[in-house]
């Protein structure tokens, strides 16, 4: 009663005293505060000399050559040995290669990562009757005194009689897919300190052994990479550690990484198994220091957990594990998004990010420049790139590759059917490549890009534009696109717009005044990736239109602001991390960055929509079938007040979609905390339900007990300011629930 009162009052207030009540929810909801970054503004990027202790950086991490402290190896695991590729048995047939009709055995359901399910019980006609079948609590959420860094982002997988998933802090569980009852749970005791930017576990990997006979423990395994850098394998039937994998089921992935602290490097995406090799990537916290830990990609034997190869950009000819005091080259581009394995070509497609010190590229090596913000096709036998396709040159906009690429067959302009790779980007440019060569199938144009503003850090003269695919972006910003509740906040935003450098996309970083990045670092497309219906040829893409506002600041100013890398001894856990101000220690500058918003009302500065969903017909000339704003204003408003309005304003979104043979697209993602079903052919929203928290995760669907279920992790997202919960919500028709 009281709550509904409050909502009504808030909605009434918002309507009465403002023209507008809907906006991007970047405003507090639940625990944790908003990103606190303030942008210094024109002429304020430096600090008077007398205010700072020294010209050079006062705050600094330890030497990059310092030895690794014992606690960084979370479970105190001994080193793992190596195994030669020739000793790895050929891989047994995997569930994900040919998924059972009602299963969802991999993060993107199948080896192609299509996020397509052949299930048909739910259709635009029946979906309206969906009810909650069960809710499962993972037990991972911020405890009192902990900064809210949570966004579970989890997608369960379903194989046979089990729904397998992980909590935001990596505990693994098997649930009954009909009742949600926990069948087993493997606690991994990942500590709060090990949470990097976000406590997330996007999913686990199902692997069937070729060595362990059927019926024996660990014939079928659940493999997971953890926030504290362990590679873990447990028996799918019991949840017991696989004794023959690594050291009793665990491998220490901090081996060879050198100096680090908990939370600096972490795994949040499920590691793919390609021809028997588990390929592991990890995120390195953005914006900390030029000589951050390595972004090395490594392959391990999925049977024994032994090391097979490393791909170290700074040391590309040495694929072995470093020994003694040596470590993988520091500061190299990291890869945090989900990778896709291609068993037929023996490749793993690695979506890469940027070298350490994300907004200054003057210190990057040519080798780093060649492979950052790219898709790198690594040969899983050798760990060497077979081809590289770069989507942004000399990226200083945090356009790191967030999406998992999707494999499909596409008839190109030449009429030939080619094995294709759909490569979504944060820029909203979707590249379509030939998987064999990395060459674009659909045309790509090189277009001139704005010049640099910072001496010693020139920008690339041109950037690639995928003109053969519809652009998932809005037109360039103009002053008249500034928005607000009233003329006054609109005026504020106009001044903010005019005070910054803005030459359209690829506006270069600047010190003299802020610059606007649009698209922002939330995309375009981000980690939600895309779903593809191979029968209809419809590709579903949800994307963002949310600019960022940033400014380089001098080292003196950074010291005055007490910006320090996470491995500085003065660093306090829970203090600023990626996506906010960053010290970029080891480069000449630090970074101040925030959404392009009115920090008082927490409304984005430009007109909505801020989030969209688009259906593209890949079989008939890559035309847009339908496109509309995604997300309503119901949970959003000035100062974070919910308005209750069902107006589809289009909110920022994180998380992806599912497409089904029943002709439905399931997606949550938006900050209105709803899950919805959309008619695949018309784009009409045919069903929606309110989640207990933010639906910033990829949903999945499966069949159990003869009925179709839809599962979504309502884990929320700290940066999206949606309510964080530990609840997996599973929907089904009433017939399925009466059991």
């Amino acid at each position, binding site marked *: 009663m009281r709550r509904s009162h409050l909502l009504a009052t808030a909605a009434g207030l918002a309507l009465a005293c*403002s*023209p*507008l009540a809907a906006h991007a929810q970047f405003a507090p909801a639940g625990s944790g505060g908003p990103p606190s970054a303030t942008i210094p503004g024109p002429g304020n990027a430096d600090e008077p000399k007398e205010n700072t202790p020294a010209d050079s950086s006062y705050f600094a991490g330890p030497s990059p050559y310092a030895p690794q402290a014992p606690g960084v190896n979370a479970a105190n695991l001994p080193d793992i040995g190596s195994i030669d590729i020739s000793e790895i048995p050929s891989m047994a047939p995997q569930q994900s290669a040919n998924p059972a009709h009602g299963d969802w055995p991999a993060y993107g359901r199948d080896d192609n990562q299509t996020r397509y399910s052949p299930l048909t019980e739910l259709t635009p006609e029946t979906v309206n009757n969906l009810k909650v079948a069960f809710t499962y609590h993972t037990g991972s959420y911020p405890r009192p005194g902990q900064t809210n860094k949570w966004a579970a982002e989890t997608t369960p997988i379903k194989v046979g009689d089990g729904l397998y998933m992980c909590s935001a802090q990596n505990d693994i569980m098997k649930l009954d897919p009909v009742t949600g009852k926990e069948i087993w749970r493997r606690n991994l005791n990942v500590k709060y300190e090990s949470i990097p930017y976000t406590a997330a576990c996007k999913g686990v990997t199902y692997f069937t052994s070729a060595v362990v006979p059927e019926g024996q423990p660990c014939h079928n395994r659940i493999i997971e990479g953890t926030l504290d850098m362990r590679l873990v394998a447990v028996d799918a039937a019991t949840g017991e550690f696989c004794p023959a994998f690594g050291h009793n089921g665990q491998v220490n992935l901090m081996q060879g990484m050198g100096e680090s602290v908990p939370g600096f490097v972490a795994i949040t995406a499920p590691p793919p198994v390609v021809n028997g090799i588990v390929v592991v990537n990890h995120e390195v916290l953005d914006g900390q220091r030029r000589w951050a830990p390595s972004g090395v990609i490594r392959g391990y034997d999925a049977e024994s957990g032994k090391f097979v190869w490393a791909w170290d950009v700074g040391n590309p000819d040495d694929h072995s594990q470093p020994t003694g005091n040596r470590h993988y080259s520091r500061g190299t581009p990291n890869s945090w998004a989900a990778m896709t394995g291609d068993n037929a070509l023996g490749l793993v497609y690695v979506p890469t990010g940027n070298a350490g010190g994300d907004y200054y590229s003057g210190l990057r090596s040519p080798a780093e420049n060649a492979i950052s913000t790219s898709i790198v096709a690594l040969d899983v036998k050798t760990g060497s790139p077979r081809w590289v396709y770069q989507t942004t040159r000399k990226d200083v906009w945090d356009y790191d590759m967030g999406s998992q690429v999707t494999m499909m067959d596409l008839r190109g302009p030449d009429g030939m059917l080619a094995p294709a790779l759909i490569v979504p980007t944060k820029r909203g440019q979707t590249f379509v490549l030939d998987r064999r060569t990395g060459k674009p199938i659909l045309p790509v144009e090189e277009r001139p890009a704005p010049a640099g503003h910072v001496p010693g850090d020139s920008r690339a003269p041109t950037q690639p534009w995928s003109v053969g695919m519809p652009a998932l972006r809005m037109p360039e910003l103009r*002053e*008249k696109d500034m*928005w*607000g*509740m*009233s*003329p*006054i*906040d*609109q*005026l*504020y935003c*106009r*001044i903010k*717009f*005019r*005070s910054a450098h803005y030459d359209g996309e690829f506006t270069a970083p600047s010190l003299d005044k802020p610059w606007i990045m649009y698209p922002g670092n939330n995309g375009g497309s981000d980690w939600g990736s895309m779903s593809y219906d191979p029968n209809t040829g419809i590709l579903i893409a949800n994307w963002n239109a949310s600019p960022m506002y940033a400014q380089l600041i001098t080292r003196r100013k950074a010291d005055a602001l007490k910006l320090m890398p996470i491995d500085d001894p003065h660093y306090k856990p829970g203090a600023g991390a990626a996506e906010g101000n960053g010290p970029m220690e080891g480069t000449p500058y630090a970074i101040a960055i925030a959404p392009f918003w009115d920090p008082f009302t927490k409304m984005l500065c430009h*007109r*909505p929509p801020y989030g969209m969903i688009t259906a593209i017909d890949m079989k008939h000339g890559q035309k847009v079938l339908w496109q509309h704003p995604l997300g309503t204003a119901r949970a959003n408003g000035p100062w974070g007040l919910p308005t209750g309005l069902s107006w589809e304003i289009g909110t920022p979104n994180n998380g992806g979609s599912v497409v089904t043979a029943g002709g439905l697209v399931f997606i949550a993602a938006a900050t209105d905390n709803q899950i919805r079903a959309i008619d695949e052919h018309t784009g009409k929203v045919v069903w929606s339900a309110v989640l207990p928290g933010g639906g910033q995760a990829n949903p999945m669907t499966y069949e159990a007990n003869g009925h179709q279920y839809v599962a979504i992790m309502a884990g929320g997202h700290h940066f999206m300011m949606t309510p964080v919960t530990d609840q997996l919500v599973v929907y089904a028709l009433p017939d399925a629930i009466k059991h």
Partner: protein
Amino acid sequence: MAVRNGTKTLTEWLTLLLGVVILLVGLIFVIMGADLAMLGGSVYYVICGIVLVASGVFMVMGRTLGAFLYLGALAYTWVWSLWEVGVSPIDLLPRAFGPTILGILVVLTIPVLRRLKSRRTLRGAV
């Protein structure tokens, strides 16, 4: 309604308050609008702000002219808004909605301002 000399009725107080609000909004428009104009942005705010300041001052003084100046500024706002973004409700919201709500209140003050005027005239005649 009995009007005693020297004391204000509630409607007169509200009219005064509205005048103060318009004056403040006008000052914000002038100061921030000048900033925007110097950055090469729209000059609408600084022009509109000057009229709003005048409107607010006259309303505080109890002059009907204040109300008409506001309505003039509102008309300018609508013309400028339609010129800048056309008939697009989502874009008209921040520009014209709030000022129009204020405009309705201003219209309601016109009888009050007229009464104040006639009272001033009476006092002047005595």
